[in-house]
């Protein structure tokens, strides 16, 4: 337990010390909220779908959680390059505890980032429907954060340096975001796109969050929750397995 705690604490300390990074990471979601929110707002409304900001905000919150989580996992590569990983690897503690501490730490940081974006969205005009459901929203945010931090750790355990990073951004993280229904409704999509969006785990995170915050979604919160939990457990396992095989 103390192993998991100290690894968690390290992530938190490092996150709050890099203030410029926290603020920098808010630029993109803010841009999405303002530009897409107001840019597409009138078309969306004309199509009879209602207020676009209401639809968009949960998607942008999850975007920010996704990016922060994957980064927090992948920064394991820096630990490796700057030698700190070796210090952790000679510690007499099970590897899965190290992995779990790092995953929970990264997930906490990513959740926090999601909460900031949520607060920002309130200033842009977003309104949530039920204060009690904020708890469910927080749960979805944390689970999605945990899932994608694990993905980041799994990736970092397989690649040696940051050279493959652009590849991962363009062929994994961006598609996960764009195909999740964060920006557009999932109804009446072409068949191929429909299948892909249903494979994307973030789809269920966005849908669950939307349901929690504005009370409308596609699959129902129960389904969303089960899918996210199952996929998070799978990736925690995969991350642990791959992390365990790292030789310093």
């Amino acid at each position, binding site marked *: 337990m103390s192993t998991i705690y*100290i690894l968690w604490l390290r992530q938190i300390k490092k996150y709050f010390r890099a203030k410029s990074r926290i603020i920098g990471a808010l630029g993109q979601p803010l841009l999405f909220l303002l530009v897409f929110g107001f840019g597409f707002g009138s078309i969306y409304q004309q199509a009879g779908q209602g207020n676009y900001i209401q639809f968009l905000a949960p998607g942008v919150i999850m975007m920010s959680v996704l990016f922060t989580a994957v980064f927090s996992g992948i920064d394991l590569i820096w630990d490796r390059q700057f*030698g700190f990983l*070796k210090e952790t690897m000679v510690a007499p503690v099970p590897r899965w505890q190290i992995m779990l501490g790092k995953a929970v730490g990264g997930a906490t940081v990513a959740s926090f980032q999601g909460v900031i974006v949520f607060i920002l969205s309130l200033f842009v005009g977003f309104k949530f429907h039920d204060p009690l459901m904020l708890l469910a929203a927080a749960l979805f945010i944390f689970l999605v954060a945990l899932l994608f931090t694990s993905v980041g750790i799994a990736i970092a355990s397989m690649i040696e340096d940051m050279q493959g990073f652009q590849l991962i951004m363009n062929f994994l993280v961006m598609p996960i975001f764009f195909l999740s229904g964060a920006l557009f409704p999932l109804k009446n999509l072409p068949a191929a796109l429909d299948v892909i969006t249903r494979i994307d785990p973030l789809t269920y995170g966005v849908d669950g969050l939307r349901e929690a915050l504005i009370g409308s979604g596609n699959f129902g919160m129960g389904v969303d929750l089960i899918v996210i939990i199952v996929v998070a457990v799978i990736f925690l396992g995969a991350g642990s397995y791959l992390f365990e095989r790292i030789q310093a």
Partner: protein
Amino acid sequence: MVSNLTDTNIISVSGLTKKFKDFVAVDNISFDVRRGEIFAFLGPNGAGKSTTIKMLTTLLQPTRGKVMINGSDPAKNKDAVRMSFGIVFQDPSLDSDLTALENMQYHAVLFKVPKEIRKRRVEELLRFVELWDRKNDMVKTFSGGMKRRLEVARGLLHQPRIMFLDVPTLGLDPQTRSHIWSYLKGISQKEDMTVFFTTHYMEEAEKVAQRIAIIDHGKIVAMGSANDLEKQTNTNSLEEAFIAITGNTIREEQVNGTDLMRSMIRMWRRH
């Protein structure tokens, strides 16, 4: 932890071999280190020193051979072995975005230093390496020598029975170097701690180590005290003995372009 206190050898290695594909990095080496002894691996870059340390410290699986560290096999009983040693790696291994104190606390928790003594022990060691005044400063503001001293203090935190140091004084000025060695020798004597270090500095091996193993191309080519090695080769200094044994000075080997670059990068990173 299985440990036989009557056994005088705390490290015992026989037939240890490591192959990376077709390249034999460590070639069938055998040696013992006695409890409380200061033992040096002397050899040029690429001789297999770091690979050996990695196998002794559970970071690398040997291809063949048998290793016992304080009564346990590092390939099988990893955690028991890990509890028994402290290590200073060749490359820096601190988190530079944490303070000196936080780096120590991280280690204390992972190495299960009991809470009651944690605070006292951390303070004792930070004072010992003269970093107590800087305990709340980020490690990234430290000089190379300060980082090294912090790594030594951290390695000693859980009162290891063996201290491994992989080229610990590379790129440090002579003053810092002698400081570090005086700490380590003191603790080794006081707590009967074994010190195993690698180096390519002749003077360091001669001055500090009670016994020296000369390693070249993955093989141990000679072993004994500096005096023994001089006698064996009929020479007057370790440097001459080294040339007589390996047919090379240690410096010549370093003037290989990649090695030079590597050591320059290391020095640069350290400062």
